[in-house]
């Protein structure tokens, strides 16, 4: 449905809005804005997690949860699955999307690389929020080597 497009437009505008307060915030300012985007995403991820059917949540292992995020969650939200999932089996996972929809509007090419973190912060929060609702505390970061591909790194926090 076209409402996926509506979300993408809203996301782009949110990124623009949170920077508009201070067009040149400097390094400290930028981090604050990224964390605001991340926390908005976190709230959405939590809420999404709460709406999952209970039977979907009979995960036996942590890896099953991450697979769920890569397949079912990603498919529901972005109409595609994550392209790869790797882990060191010690609580660190790398989720790779070779064509991340929220990066697609940006021109492919290295010149826009420094803008990429703004477009990833919300989704990092979303992953962290969904994991939180599923009982897993984590730190999620993202990196871009070549647009529109990116990697999300999930590090599970042991309680």
């Amino acid at each position, binding site marked *: 449905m076209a409402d996926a497009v509506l979300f993408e437009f809203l996301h782009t505008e949110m990124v623009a*809005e949170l920077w508009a307060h201070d067009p040149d915030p400097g390094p400290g300012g930028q981090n604050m804005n990224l964390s605001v985007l991340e926390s908005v995403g976190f709230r959405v991820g939590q809420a999404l997690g709460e709406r999952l059917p209970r039977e979907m949540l009979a995960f036996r292992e942590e890896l099953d949860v991450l697979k769920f995020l890569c397949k079912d969650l990603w498919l529901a939200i972005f109409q595609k699955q994550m392209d790869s999932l790797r882990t060191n089996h010690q609580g660190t996972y790398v989720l790779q999307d070779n064509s991340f929809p929220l990066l697609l509007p940006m021109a492919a090419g290295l010149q826009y690389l420094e803008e990429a973190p703004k477009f990833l912060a919300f989704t990092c929060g979303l992953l962290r929020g969904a994991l939180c609702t599923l009982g897993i505390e984590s730190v999620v970061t993202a990196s871009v080597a070549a647009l529109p591909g990116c990697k999300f790194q999930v590090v599970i926090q042991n309680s």
Partner: protein
Amino acid sequence: MGSQWLFTLTYGALVTQLCKDYENDEDVNKQLDKMGYNIGVRLIEDFLARSNVGRCHDFRETADVIAKVAFKMYLGITPSITNWSPAGDEFSLILENNPLVDFVELPDNHSSLIYSNLLCGVLRGALEMVQMAVEAKFVQDTLKGDGVTEIRMRFIRRIEDNLPAGEE
């Protein structure tokens, strides 16, 4: 679960964040309108590409397209069109259900907040790109206890292309 929830939930989280960022509801309303406008001026291209509707010849056709095509396409609802002014320059969109507010309750200290104000900005921005200056505003809101949600649309003027100086 799906992308409709994603939009609704994200919108809710955004409004919550704006209420933290701004001191009063009026400023949040303005910000939502502005953001909506920025979305609208780009959304119109997406809409025209998907829908294949031709040029609207009058405001009545415009109303039909907004309610039956645009709202249906993006929000999955078809508002009804009522209360035409005698001059045909104003009408109301009545939303029995507003999908934006599915999980929302307004806290007591935000009685002036126009929660869905983004929609007014979107309508204004999109129509401006097709040469129509309009005003859109909420006159009823289920979040405030009204039975329905009503958006009043008013045609202000046609936007003519500006001619270069020196030409008639």
